[in-house]
C-alpha cells in the first residue's frame, strides 16, 4: 500500500500534472472555439455541447498517455518495478489512477462551467459532470493498453489513440447519452459499468504487454 501511494504521488506530481495542465488548456480552447465554428445559436450549441465536451475530454486525455510508461521504460525504472514486490498490474493501476486524477478529473469539474457557457442548463451541466466522473476512468484504463503497446514508438500518443479508439467508443457513446437533457440513468450506469469492466481487464492486458516488451 505504501509502495502504491509512493508511485501514485510520483506519477501525479511528475509527468501527469504537466500533461493535465495542458489538457485543461486544450479543453478550454475547444469550448472557446466551438461557438466560433458553429455560430452563437443557443439551441445548436446546447444540443451538441455534451458530445463535444466528451470528445474534447477523450482527446485531452491523450496528452498524458504518452508519458505513462515511456520514461520509466527508458530509464529502466519499469524493470525495477516489475521485479519489486508490487505486481506490475498494480503498478499499471497506480499509473492509470494518477492519469485520471491529473488529466480527466479536472475536466469533469470544468465541464460544469463550460456547459453553462455553451448554453446548457445548470442541471444538464451537472449531468455532464456526473457522467464524466463515472465514465472517464475507462479512458485512462483502456488508454494504458495503447500506451503500453506504443512504448517506444515515435508520436506514440497519437498511435495509442488510434489503437484504443474502438475501445473508447462505448464509453463515449454512453457518456454523451447520459449527458443529455433529461439525465439518462441507464446510460449513466452503462458508462460506469464500462469503467468497471475496464478496471477488471485493462491492468492485466497492459501488464502482459509490458512484460512482453521487457522480455524482448
Amino acid at each position, binding site marked *: 500500500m*505504501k*509502495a502504491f*501511494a*509512493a*508511485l501514485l504521488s*510520483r506519477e501525479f506530481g*511528475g*509527468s501527469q500534472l504537466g500533461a493535465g495542465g495542458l489538457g485543461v488548456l486544450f479543453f478550454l480552447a475547444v469550448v472557446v472555439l466551438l461557438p466560433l465554428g458553429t455560430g452563437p445559436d443557443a439551441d445548436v450549441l446546447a444540443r451538441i455541447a455534451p458530445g463535444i465536451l466528451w470528445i474534447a475530454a477523450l482527446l485531452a486525455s491523450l496528452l498524458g498517455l504518452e508519458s505513462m510508461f515511456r*520514461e*520509466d521504460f*527508458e*530509464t*529502466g*525504472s519499469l*524493470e*525495477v*518495478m*516489475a*521485479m*519489486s*514486490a*508490487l505486481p506490475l498490474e498494480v503498478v499499471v493501476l497506480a499509473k492509470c489512477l494518477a492519469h485520471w486524477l491529473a488529466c480527466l478529473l479536472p475536466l469533469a469539474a470544468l465541464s460544469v462551467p463550460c456547459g453553462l457557457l455553451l448554453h446548457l442548463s445548470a442541471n444538464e451541466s451537472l449531468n455532464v459532470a456526473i457522467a464524466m466522473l463515472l465514465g472517464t476512468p475507462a479512458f485512462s484504463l483502456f488508454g494504458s493498453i495503447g500506451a503500453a503497446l506504443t512504448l517506444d514508438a515515435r508520436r506514440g500518443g497519437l498511435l495509442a489513440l488510434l489503437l484504443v479508439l474502438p475501445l473508447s467508443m462505448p464509453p463515449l457513446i454512453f457518456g454523451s447519452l447520459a449527458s443529455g437533457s433529461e439525465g439518462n440513468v441507464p446510460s449513466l450506469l452503462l458508462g460506469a459499468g464500462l469503467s468497471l469492466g475496464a478496471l477488471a481487464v485493462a491492468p492485466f492486458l497492459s501488464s502482459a504487454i509490458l512484460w512482453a516488451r*521487457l*522480455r524482448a
Partner: protein
Amino acid sequence: MRVQLFSSSKIELRKVACARGGREVFHNVNVRLRPGGALVVQGANGCGKTSLLRMLAGILKPAHGEIHLGATACYLGHENALSKRSSAQANLEFWAKFLGASRESLEKGIECFHLRPLLPVPVASLSLGQCRRVALARLCLTPVKIWLLDEPASGLDAQALESLGTLMASHRESGGMVAAASHVPLPLKDAATLQLDESGYHRRQEELEPSI
C-alpha cells in the same frame, strides 16, 4: 536453523542456454553459488552477460535448462532507473518508499556512496559516474539476498569503487550473494569466474563454496 535457512537460498543454473533473436548465444552454462558467494561473468560484447543476469532476475526465460533462485533478487541493469527530471534525493526517496525501505537504510546508502552533496542536484545534471553512485545506493534499500549487477563499476571513480567493494563484502558476510557482469576488475574477493566466449560456449564451470 540459520544454516538451514541459508542452505535453501542459493543460485543454481543447470545446463542453461540462451537464445536471442533466434540465435543461440550460449549454452550449457552450469553455476552453483552458495550464500556468501560471488560470481563474475566475463566475456566479449554480445556474448550474453546481460542476458544471463536478466535470466537470473526472472525477466528472460532460458531457452533450455533450469534456473533455481532460493531468494528474491535485486537487479541493477545498464540503466540507472533514475528520473532525469527530479533530484537525486527525490529519486532515492521514491525508491525507498516504493521498496519499503527504512529511513536508516536510505541514510546508509547515501553515506556509503558519499551522496550527501549530490542530493539536491537534478539527475539530468549529474555525471555518468555520479548517476551510477545514486543507482548503487538503491542496493542498500532492499533486504534481498541476491544482487545481480550489470556493469556496476561503469563510470565509477576509485573511491566509489572502493565503497562498492566494502558494500559487497558486508553483503556477502551477512549471507548475501553477488553475481556481476563486468569488463573491469571488481573488488570481489574469492569470486568465481564464468567466462562466456564469442563462439557461444563457456569455458569454465565454477562452483563456489560458502565463504561463511
